[in-house]
């Protein structure tokens, strides 16, 4: 079920939330579990069996790991990791592996007849697999007690607000809130008007980002990226910047709706985005973008590999491995691998050249104007991130290189936009650009308000500030129940 669908907004959410507050606390887990199944089965019902498999494996793995010691404990964790990644590999990477293996074998002159199974990727598979994995790893590390109640554990994996696109929660946060014993918190929350309103405001901000900005940008982006050889450099640059905004608004919009919906019911999900395009370096970007995933990789891959407490070449190697895996996590395609490799390279190059850059900025006196230095760094970071997005968004590797080639091989000219303008619905372009620019200005302000990091204006002004978002959605929203980009991951 899509958050931006009539079914969710008018039936599912009000019904589930209403029942949640009416039901006695002891039945709430069951309500949320049933609701989460309903939510998930709205996509491809049979794929709930995959979730059931993951839940069963990790439920028992958690208990057995807790009861075991030594080698057996490690073996159980390995079995859980293999089972989870096995499911992920089969459903997400079978086609990719089969296709590439076939190409390799055929290039060597042999016949290759392994069939493509035509598997449809279960929605949100990478998200709930990682969430479930984090539980067994935390139990293994002794940071988390194994959950004995299968229904509660199932709810931890399936909690509907973040089931299909995160944030990828950790048991220390979500499971403990589901099991809360403190009255008024987590599952024991009462109806609190202030908290409910805060949750609804965050949802509203999420819907604004998705419907007014992301889905509008998508119309322009799809046009250019759908036919890369028909558009000039300026059109490609514009579409790429718009995609940078689109993917941010799409994904962080989903996250805001998820966090808001959970907050209405008294759950605090982890922050997933912190205005990432205001980062002054790629390193900072990854501490502000998809935080739940980057921290997952940090805790369960980067640090176990040795992190930065190793010799330099090994440190760089660790970084590259993490980003290549992160690329593959996003999708089974070489474009994602290149995207990951680019980010890994950015980070390694920044480390290698850090002393040189420091000397250079000191030399030209940039250190004496910190504000200018900060904005310059932000500008450079946005360019690097946007460049990498070309590979993330392109339909295939060939297209991505066509886009890069066209972007840099010709001078930018306003006539580049002619084909694009002709292909778009009337006045789509100017309104999209205008709304996007407006969004760039208001995003940091609203972002802090909805995260309660800064107080929103009080009284009628505060009400109007959010009412404007609703009016904006009604008047400028791009409707049609379009899916969220990150669902495919």
């Amino acid at each position, binding site marked *: 079920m899509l958050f931006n669908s009539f079914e969710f907004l008018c039936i599912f959410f009000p019904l589930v939330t209403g029942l949640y507050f009416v039901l006695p606390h002891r039945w709430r887990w069951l309500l949320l579990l049933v609701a989460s199944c309903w939510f998930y089965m709205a996509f491809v019902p049979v794929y709930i069996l995959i979730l059931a498999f993951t839940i069963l494996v990790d439920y028992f793995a958690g208990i057995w790991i807790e009861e075991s010691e030594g080698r057996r404990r490690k073996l159980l964790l390995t079995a859980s990791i293999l089972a989870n990644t096995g499911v992920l590999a089969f459903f997400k990477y079978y086609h990719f592996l089969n296709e590439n293996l076939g190409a390799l074998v055929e290039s060597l002159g042999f016949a290759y007849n392994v069939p493509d199974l035509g598997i449809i990727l279960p929605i949100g598979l990478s998200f709930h697999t990682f969430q479930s994995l984090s539980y067994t790893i935390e139990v293994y590390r002794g940071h988390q007690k194994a959950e004995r109640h299968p229904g509660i554990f199932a709810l931890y994996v399936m909690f509907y607000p973040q089931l299909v696109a995160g944030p990828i929660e950790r048991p220390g946060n979500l499971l403990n809130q589901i099991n809360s014993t403190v009255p008024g918190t987590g599952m024991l929350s009462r109806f609190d*008007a202030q908290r409910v309103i805060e949750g609804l405001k965050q949802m509203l901000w999420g819907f604004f980002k998705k419907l007014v900005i992301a889905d509008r940008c998508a119309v322009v982006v799809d046009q250019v990226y759908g036919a890369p050889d028909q558009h000039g450099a300026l059109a490609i640059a514009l579409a790429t910047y718009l995609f940078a905004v689109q993917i941010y608004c799409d994904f962080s919009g989903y996250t805001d709706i998820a966090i808001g919906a959970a907050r209405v019911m008294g759950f605090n999900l982890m922050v997933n985005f912190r205005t990432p395009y205001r980062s002054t370096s790629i390193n900072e970007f990854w501490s502000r973008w998809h935080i739940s995933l980057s921290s997952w990789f940090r805790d369960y891959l980067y640090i176990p590999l040795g992190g930065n407490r190793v010799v330099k070449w090994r440190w760089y190697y660790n970084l590259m491995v993490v980003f290549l895996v992160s690329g593959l996590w996003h999708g089974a395609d070489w474009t994602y691998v290149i995207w990951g490799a680019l980010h890994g390279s950015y980070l390694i190059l920044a480390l290698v050249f850090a002393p040189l850059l420091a000397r250079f900025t000191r030399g030209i006196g940039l250190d004496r104007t910190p504000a200018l230095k900060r904005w310059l760094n932000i500008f450079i970071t946005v360019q690097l991130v946007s460049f990498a997005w070309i590979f993330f968004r392109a339909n295939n590797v060939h297209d991505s290189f066509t886009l890069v080639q066209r972007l840099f091989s010709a001078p930018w000219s306003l006539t580049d936009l002619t084909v694009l303008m002709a292909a778009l619905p009337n006045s789509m372009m100017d309104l999209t650009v205008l709304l996007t620019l407006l969004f760039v200005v208001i995003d940091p302000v609203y972002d802090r308000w909805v995260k309660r990091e800064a107080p929103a204006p009080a009284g009628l002004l505060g009400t109007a500030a959010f009412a404007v978002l609703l009016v904006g959605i009604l008047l400028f929203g791009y*409707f049609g129940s379009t899916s969220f980009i990150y669902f495919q991951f």
Partner: protein
Amino acid sequence: MGRFLARTSVFLLVAGALYTIAIVALTQIKVSGTPLIYRTGDYYKWPGDDTWDTFHEFAPHKHYDAIILGSSHTNRGYDPEVFAKRGYSVFVLGSKAQTPMNSYPVIKYLLDSSNCPLLIYDIFDKMLINNGMESTVDLMTNQPSNRVALYMAYAQRDLRTMNLMALRLALPLDSPYFDYGHYRSLGFSVWLDTLKDRGGLPDTTDLEISPRQRNYLQACIELCRDKGIQIVFSSHYVRSNRKGGTYARTTRFMDLLCRTNQVPYLDFSDQPHIENNLWFHDYNHMNLTGARIFTENLVDSLEALGYLRHGNDRP
């Protein structure tokens, strides 16, 4: 809970006020002579052309022997002049991509047994798989009844229709913005071109019939029954390469629907000579020649079955 409801009410009031201000501003501020609102979404259409002319000519208080409803097949394929020559007054209220969901309020608010003893409803497979938005936009923009527009806005379950309704109220129009000049009268538009090729690529669609449209078609039958209107379904000529999987599904569905409800279905889609290029002006729509030939056939059948009768013969 009281505090929550109070704050929600204030929020909705403020949002309502801001929305009203925004609509007034967008409809009153003009850029190059065009209200700004037309630049904010691709679903705002200029009022005018066939649908405008049709619904502004239609007089609900007048008696017609039959009314024709359905998609653009009707206003190009069912010629009221042929009916008139045979002594029947007929008006075509069909319009662009009109779906059963859009026809329902037209029957509900504009038709009854005194102005429409017989309703001829054209069935075209594409309108049963359609979500109705195209027709909702067309009718909300062009037909004059606010009641019909409001019903459609609600039935569509799409926020865009709220803006269309607001636009209707904020910018009431008394004349169309454009006219392509095809409209003749009585809801009929004349197209004289003929099809230049053999009919393009075959129709390969094989889509499920929309449950909403299915339900609305059933509701149209029941509404006609309640109002004492005789409903007859019909399909005009369909070129053989336009008969894809959706067409086959529609035919099966209509057979079942008509059998269950005991409603006649005059299906002309399989008539001989329908490949004749001189009868069509595009792959789906007939031109004046085709319309006249088809309408003659239709009137013959309706008379033979007793649904159209002259003067004292009327039941």
